[in-house]
């Protein structure tokens, strides 16, 4: 009898003791969830403690490179796990530590509205321009990212309209705007020296101040200068100003292109006024440090702009400190391989395909989470923005839209790689900072034909590319290989 | 330091049979209490060489010796040394066994020639005729005069003839050597029956010869013999004999002869304190009668309980301390007289019918030996080479079982033991403490000496001893052969045995002891 007891004790001990900590974590979270269909603060903190105390590799997915726990990843995993276990628990049911921004994190926003004469057409009547900006400024206020807002008009001079603006002030600033009131607000409205405007605005940007610049960004060379030279000089000047700021400051900038009804006078490159009634682009620039810009982007305010935006472009100085989360998928293999050490690779036992349709090819798919990047998700669908260390690999990118597929949950894009030349190597995938194509599409080198009712030209912005390229060169000097994001995949044949 | 010796003079048929019982008891490991170990040297004095009993005892002792030669005396069973006289007696006794005293000149000789009647002078011749008048029968069954008896069938109930012949003992070389080898610590025991021929004559003759050693010109050297510690048992009538008018042996004569002998003893044995310890045993049982056969090839008597009890006297004698057996100038200073009794007068004696002393002495050990035999008969074949105890080195395997030790010596001995038990069981007064087969089966068994039939009732292990009940119950293990195997394996575990032979004997000794004490209620 004693023998039996002893043996069964040993047996039970064996079984219990052999659960990994990660398995215990899974079980514990499941218990918490099934108890009351939610994870409250105490339970969540209990789970956090388990994660922080253990070194098991299962927990590494929740921690960043420095070992700090990323709550978003934890929540994301829990969601996936509960979903797999057929528990209807959403992120809302899981308590999360609030990112209560402390006073120190909040910053002031300086809003600069370019009020040169060319802007009148946007404010006639009730335009999308007014609505969008009014709502955006209102959103800034209620988002909690800023603790104060200063409103100014800018052209040759800086005219501060209101400091610490309140809602009525914003209304006043933009909504109630009409060309007449614009004129009234004063300043030299004749010329748009974009370089100077940008420089003035740049000077206001620091760790406590973010600048929001709204303008049509149309260069006005005038009839005195050669347009091409003017544009070039402006471009270089802007580059120098931005580069100078970048050398001492962790600068980031967001440029969004929006459309609005335009009813007024358009001044072409020769400064000839042309009456125009159509839809025209205008731009909002948000300039600050990376943290501030990141915060603003996270609030998704820009996505909520009334009427939406056409295009977005983000400039960032520093390479993202965190590697994007990625996962090599076992599905969609061209040829065959194994992931002996998990979804981060290396890709082992790789073999080319024998299948008649894909003979001689080797391919794999990587799901990547670009959601934490400053860049827009569309940025990552452009293969031109990717650089591979081995050019023999082809790349296709798909946005992940399938919400049902658990294994893709938490990832934003699928990168599909394929090659004919399979060899042992470490493939480096870089996302580079580039001027996106829409900038070139929106660019106009000669707006003279607007007078001749050139519809296409009406949608473009004269000299826009010079402006953007100038900024781009400052952020991404061609001499350095600066990548916005990067990760490696190791491939082993056998 | 050599062991002190016990010389046993087994006279006549009774002597042989008691000796046989003694051998069985010694084989079971029964021995006298006390620290002194004795070496037992049996000397059979019986001219009736074709005496079946003698033959059987002979074989038995030879087997016993063969067994102990191989395994020694430390194995529980067979733990007493039984030696042959030729160990100490240089003169080779040429007779049947090596321990039969060769009665000279008795083969094929008629008594009258022995006493050389023809050459006696007239007065002596007349005396002889008177002394030895009477009739007897010869070995062919014809009636003859007493003087014409051919002596190689003993003295057929005529101690008067026997005493004359047996007197030659004192002049023999054997006696001379015996005397010179006799040490102070040695003892002597004489077994004889009072109603027979050889026994009745031999006992006082030999006794006298021993006590008179100092005066014997034949021997020289130590005078220990004269003051030797002598014990003796005299077996009075205990069996019934068939009436056979033509036989010289008649039951009615037994009582008369007993009386005559006892009165002779009174003057010549007990009267002058020649014996230090004298044991008497008798039974007035009037049950089953023996066949009346004096002749050649005859006197094969079935074993009887009396013989077993007589053997106990020898054991008892060895337990008496030296101080109580003091002898001075050939005379016991304080002679002891003992009788044997049983608790209950039953016709088939079981252990519980014995007095406590006897029961304690023999019940456990005899049961052990019986259980040993029972296992060998009924279960050894199924266990060998299958159970742990058999496979542990040294192994009890087919090879072992085909060797002489088991195949011949031990098997023959145990077969004889089986017959001994069966005979005592069937006899009356019987001794049947064990559950043996039915009467008919046992008779077949004994008559055929068949080795295929085993004496024990194979039905179950638990009813093997008649008056001992095995405690069984819900939580107690069933006592069966599986249990036996388990006990054997348990006992054998971790023990080192020198040889398979020693292992076989010792293992079973210890295991049967364990089983009997733990399950059958024996006290160890």
């Amino acid at each position, binding site marked *: 009898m004693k*023998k*039996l007891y002893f*043996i069964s004790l*040993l*047996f039970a001990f*064996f*079984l219990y003791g*052999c659960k*990994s900590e*990660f*398995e215990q974590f899974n079980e514990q979270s499941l218990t918490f969830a099934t108890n009351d269909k939610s994870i409250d603060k105490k339970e969540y903190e209990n789970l956090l403690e388990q994660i922080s105390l253990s070194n*098991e*590799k*299962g*927990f590494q*997915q929740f921690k960043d490179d420095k070992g700090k726990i990323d709550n978003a990843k934890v929540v994301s*995993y829990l969601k*996936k*796990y509960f979903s*797999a*276990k057929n528990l209807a628990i959403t992120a809302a049911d899981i308590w999360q530590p609030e990112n209560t921004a402390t006073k120190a994190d909040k910053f002031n926003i300086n809003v600069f509205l370019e009020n040169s004469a060319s802007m009148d057409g946007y404010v006639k009547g009730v335009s999308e321009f007014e609505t969008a900006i009014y709502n955006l400024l209102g959103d800034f206020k209620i988002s909690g990212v800023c603790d104060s807002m200063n409103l100014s008009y800018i052209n040759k001079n800086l005219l501060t309209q209101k400091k610490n603006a309140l809602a009525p002030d914003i209304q006043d600033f933009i909504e109630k705007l009409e060309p007449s009131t614009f004129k009234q607000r004063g300043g030299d409205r004749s010329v748009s020296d974009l370089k100077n405007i940008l420089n003035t605005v740049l000077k206001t940007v620091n760790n406590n101040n973010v600048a929001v610049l709204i303008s049509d960004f149309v260069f006005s060379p005038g009839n005195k200068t050669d347009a091409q030279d003017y544009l070039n000089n402006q471009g270089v000047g802007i580059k120098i100003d931005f580069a100078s700021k970048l050398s001492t400051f962790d600068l980031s900038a967001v440029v969004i292109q929006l459309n609005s009804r335009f009813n007024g006078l358009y001044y072409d490159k020769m400064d000839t006024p042309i009456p125009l009634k159509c839809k025209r682009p205008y731009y909002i620039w948000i300039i600050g440090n990376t943290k501030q810009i990141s915060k603003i982007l996270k609030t998704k305010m820009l996505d909520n702009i009334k009427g939406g935006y056409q295009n977005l472009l983000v400039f960032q100085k520093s390479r993202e400190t965190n590697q994007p989360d990625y*996962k090599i*998928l*076992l*599905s969609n293999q061209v040829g065959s391989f*194994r*992931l002996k*050490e*998990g*979804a*981060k690779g290396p890709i082992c036992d790789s073999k080319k395909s024998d299948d008649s349709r894909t003979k001689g090819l080797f391919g794999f798919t990587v799901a990547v989470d670009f959601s934490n990047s400053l860049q827009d998700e569309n940025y990552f669908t452009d293969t031109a923005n990717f650089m591979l260390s081995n050019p023999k690999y082809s790349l296709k990118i798909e946005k992940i839209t399938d919400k049902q*597929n*658990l*294994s893709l*949950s938490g990832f934003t894009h699928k990168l599909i790689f394929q090659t004919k030349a399979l060899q042992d190597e470490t493939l480096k995938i870089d996302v580079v900072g580039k001027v996106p194509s829409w900038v070139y599409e929106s660019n106009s080198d000669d707006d003279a034909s607007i007078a001749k009712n050139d519809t296409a030209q009406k949608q473009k912005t004269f000299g826009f590319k010079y402006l953007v390229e100038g900024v781009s060169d400052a952020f991404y000097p061609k001499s350095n290989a600066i990548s916005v994001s990067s990760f490696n995949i190791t491939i082993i044949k056998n | 330091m050599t062991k002190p010796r016990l010389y046993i003079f087994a006279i006549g048929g009774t002597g042989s049979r008691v000796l046989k019982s003694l051998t069985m008891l010694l084989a079971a490991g029964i021995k006298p209490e006390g620290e002194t170990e004795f070496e037992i040297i049996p000397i059979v004095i019986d001219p009736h060489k074709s005496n079946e009993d003698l033959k059987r005892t002979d074989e038995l002792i030879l087997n016993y010796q063969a067994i102990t030669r191989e395994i020694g005396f430390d194995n529980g069973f067979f733990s007493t040394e039984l030696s042959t006289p030729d160990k100490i007696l240089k003169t080779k006794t040429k007779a049947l066994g090596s321990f039969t005293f060769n009665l000279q000149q008795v083969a094929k000789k008629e008594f009258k020639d022995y006493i050389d009647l023809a050459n006696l002078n007239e007065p002596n011749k007349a005396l002889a005729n008177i002394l030895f008048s009477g009739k007897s029968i010869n070995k062919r069954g014809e009636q003859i005069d007493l003087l014409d008896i051919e002596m190689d069938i003993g003295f057929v109930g005529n101690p008067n003839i026997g005493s004359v012949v047996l007197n030659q003992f004192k002049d023999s070389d054997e006696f001379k050597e015996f005397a010179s080898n006799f040490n102070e610590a040695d003892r002597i025991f004489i077994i004889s029956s009072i109603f027979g021929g050889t026994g009745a004559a031999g006992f006082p003759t030999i006794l006298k010869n021993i006590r008179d050693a100092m005066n014997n010109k034949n021997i020289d050297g130590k005078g220990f013999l004269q003051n030797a510690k002598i014990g003796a048992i005299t077996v009075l009538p205990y069996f019934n004999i068939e009436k056979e008018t033509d036989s010289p042996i008649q039951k009615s004569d037994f009582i008369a002869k007993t009386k005559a002998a006892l009165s002779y003893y009174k003057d010549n044995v007990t009267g002058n304190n020649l014996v230090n310890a004298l044991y008497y045993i008798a039974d007035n049982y009037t049950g089953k009668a023996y066949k009346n056969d004096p002749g050649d090839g005859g006197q094969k008597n079935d074993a009887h309980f009396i013989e077993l009890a007589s053997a106990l006297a020898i054991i008892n004698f060895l337990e008496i301390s030296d101080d109580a057996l003091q002898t001075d100038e050939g005379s016991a200073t304080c002679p002891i007289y003992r009788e044997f009794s049983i608790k209950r007068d039953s016709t088939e004696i079981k252990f519980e019918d014995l007095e406590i002393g006897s029961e304690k002495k023999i019940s456990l050990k005899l049961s052990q030996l019986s259980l040993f035999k029972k296992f060998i008969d009924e279960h050894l074949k199924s*266990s060998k*080479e*299958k*159970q*742990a105890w058999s*496979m*542990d080195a040294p192994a009890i395997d087919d090879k072992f079982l085909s060797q002489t030790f088991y195949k011949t010596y031990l098997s023959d001995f145990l077969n004889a033991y089986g017959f001994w038990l069966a005979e005592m069981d069937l006899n009356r007064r019987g001794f049947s403490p064990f559950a043996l087969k039915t009467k008919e089966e046992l008779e077949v068994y004994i008559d055929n000496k068949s080795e295929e039939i085993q004496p024990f009732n194979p039905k179950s292990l638990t009813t093997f001893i008649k008056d001992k009940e095995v405690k069984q119950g819900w939580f107690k293990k069933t006592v069966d052969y*599986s249990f036996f*195997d*388990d006990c054997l*394996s*348990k006992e054998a*575990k971790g023990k080192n045995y020198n040889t398979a032979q020693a292992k076989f004997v010792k293992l079973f000794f210890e295991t049967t002891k364990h089983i009997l004490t733990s399950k059958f209620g024996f006290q160890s």
Partner: protein
Amino acid sequence: MRGNIISILVLSVVILLIAISGFSPIFEIGGLNPLIPVDLADHLRGYDITCSGYFGTVWYQYVGLIMIASTVLFYAIQYHIIDKPTFNQKHHLWIMIAFCMGFNFFIAFIFPYNSLQSGDYCKDLNFSVFNCAGFAFTNSVLCFVFYSLLTSLTIPRKLSRNCSHTTLLTP
């Protein structure tokens, strides 16, 4: 004696292997086992339900440990708990091994089968009920091997009273 040394050597190698790289090389026999295809192997190694890596339930470990523990238990039951002279022949041992193998087949089958039925596995991995049976068969064969090794060693056997000589071939 020589058999003893071989068994001890084999067992030590196996234990070392398990300590270093877990149970997978034992079951997969270095990838040569055709009964456990790659996808099932990944699942058994613990590829988790979100297809992110090997931090799910390592089924190999459970099955392996149960196999070892059950083999030791069955062995102990026959040799040390029951320990009877009527249950120590070689055919009795074969009977116990058969039961143990059956038990282990069942265990090794039921775990992946359960995962399959409940959908509790990374969907990128493809394996079938037939594969589960293949794994179960492998486990029962391993059980047999381990049992044979265990009963071939004299040391634990010697502690038994009646079964100290019981092996696959004797008595």
